[in-house]
């Protein structure tokens, strides 16, 4: 138990540090949201607008960085993430809650599927070492080296277009109102297929490789040989002895991958114009929308931490050796 407590303390500390960095990084950078907005509009907005925007965004007051920091922390504790500049005056929490479900839905699900598929395939490939399965390795190496945004673009070029089943962008059919009916769900799935496939293709190979390596390593452990010696059916040896143990080191990798759902697959969202957090993050960077940036970073940070915490718990469950009696 104290192990978990210790982890918890560590997580709190990390969360605080990350929040602090989140606060300072955007403020270190030059440029401000007003200039960014004017620049983005390229003449669509007059140069007079500058003054009114500073007033509007509340940037006309001179507040010290420290007092901003503490009021930010205070806001955070009250669960208030502030107002987005790009979508002024919408609260950041609203903006994020628009994007988050899509990201979690698309990238989250595909990350999990990728992990499961890759791990399963890796287990088989590692187990069947010395057969045709080995020839899969160079292929997966190559595939995993392709930047996924490129893969996505090629997929869009090749597979989408007028009359194609695959939409090139968006999360659901234009004009549908999000709700839980079949038409909407179907449309969501349809829109998720291509980006999901892209993520899958490029993430699956990584899992295959790492699982295979672990499988090879574990297969030559004595207890696997003992399992063979016990005359157990091959499936059982492979699953309960080799794969079960080979899985362990991948758990923390999986946690990290879960955490990087938002940050890591930002490009997929950009390429497929998928209305998730990654796209919002990208736009927020361009618009110098600090509150939104901070909010998204906070979400990412917390989800990484949460994923790690879950991994710790999963590890406790999966590996009895870590369950040290204190």
């Amino acid at each position, binding site marked *: 138990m104290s192990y978990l407590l210790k982890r918890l303390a560590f997580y709190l500390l990390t969360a605080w540090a990350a929040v602090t*960095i989140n606060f300072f990084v955007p403020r270190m950078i030059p440029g401000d949201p007003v200039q960014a907005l004017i620049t983005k509009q390229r003449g669509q907005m007059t140069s007079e607008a500058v003054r009114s925007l500073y007033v509007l965004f509340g940037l006309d007051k001179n507040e010290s960085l420290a007092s901003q920091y503490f009021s930010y922390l205070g806001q955070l504790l009250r669960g208030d993430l502030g107002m987005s500049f790009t979508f002024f005056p919408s609260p950041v929490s609203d903006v994020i809650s628009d994007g988050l479900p899509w990201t979690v839905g698309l990238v989250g699900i595909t990350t999990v599927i990728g992990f499961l598929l890759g791990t399963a395939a890796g287990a088989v490939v590692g187990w069947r070492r010395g*057969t045709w399965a080995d020839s899969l390795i160079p292929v997966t190496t190559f595939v995993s080296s392709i930047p996924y945004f490129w893969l996505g673009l090629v997929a869009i070029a090749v597979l989408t277009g007028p009359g194609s089943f695959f939409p090139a962008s968006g999360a659901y059919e234009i004009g549908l109102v999000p709700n839980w009916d079949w038409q909407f769900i179907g449309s969501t799935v349809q829109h998720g297929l291509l980006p999901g496939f892209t993520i899958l293709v490029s993430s699956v190979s990584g899992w295959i490789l790492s699982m295979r390596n672990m499988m090879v390593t574990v297969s030559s452990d004595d207890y696997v040989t003992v399992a063979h010696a016990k005359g157990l059916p091959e499936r059982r040896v492979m699953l309960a002895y080799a794969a079960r143990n080979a899985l362990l080191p991948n758990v923390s990798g999986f946690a990290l991958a879960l*955490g990087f759902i938002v940050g890591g697959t930002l490009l997929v969202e950009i390429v497929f114009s998928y209305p998730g957090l990654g796209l919002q993050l990208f736009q927020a960077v361009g618009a110098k929308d600090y509150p939104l940036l901070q909010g998204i970073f906070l979400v990412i940070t917390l989800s990484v931490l949460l994923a790690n915490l879950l991994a710790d718990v999963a590890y406790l469950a999966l590996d009895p050796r870590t369950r040290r009696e204190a």
Partner: protein
Amino acid sequence: MRTNAKALTGVIMLVVFVLLAVIGPWIAPFDPSMRSNALLQPPSSMHWFGTTHLGQDIFSQVLAGTRSVVFVGAVAGVVATVLSVLVGITAGYLSGTASEGLSALSNVFLVIPALPLIIIITSSLPETSNLTIALVIGLTSWAWNARVLRAQTLSLRRRDYVEAARANGESTWRIILFEILPNLYAVIASGFVGTVLFAVISEITLAFIGVSDAGGWNWGTVLYWAQSQQALAQGAWWWFVPAGLAIALLGTSLSLVNFGIDEYVNPRLRTRFSMRGVRMRVGFTPVLAKETS
């Protein structure tokens, strides 16, 4: 020792890329930025990879772009490796607050998503030369390696030969530098290669979304222009494919080198499981047909 075919292939490919990085801009048939009247032409004997909407030669752009990619990869790799070695080994060898502090630091860096951070920092630096991009990538991507190195150092620290060196009266810094560090070369090398791969992909990603070195070309810039001119929608596949393949090949070569290192570190990965038509199996040792002896 049997040469490792995979690693060898990787090294050869890598050498070719490095070579191109050095001489690429010189052997490029055209100035990569030079406009011509051959607008958006498919590959031909004149323009091997075709041309852009401004009539620029894509082959030359890819060739010239190799340098920036390799440079950023190498510099970021070195920076991240040096940092991870400093932080990782120190945190692993020391104990107490210093160690906890350093490992907390690397954990914070692990938790903050690297790519978005890199995007934010680079897109806000006044100047985005290759060097600054490389530095930003390097400074933000050392944490994972540091964690691996710390774990390794923790296990090395209790090794008998480290204790023996201490019992022999060696000073702490000598123990770190001469007893522990050399045993981590493989791990460090693998971390280096991994970071280079990450840096290359990051740089290209950055360039693709419009953050890149002003002066020059890299594969990401080629892709950026292709994308902003909607090359694929116009059917200009040649604008996209070469740069993408170049990235994939460079990535593959790095992964192959890493395989080699992995196999070096973990001998169990090295054993070949299929030789001369005999399949080696765990649990069922193959029996060769009886030879008359």
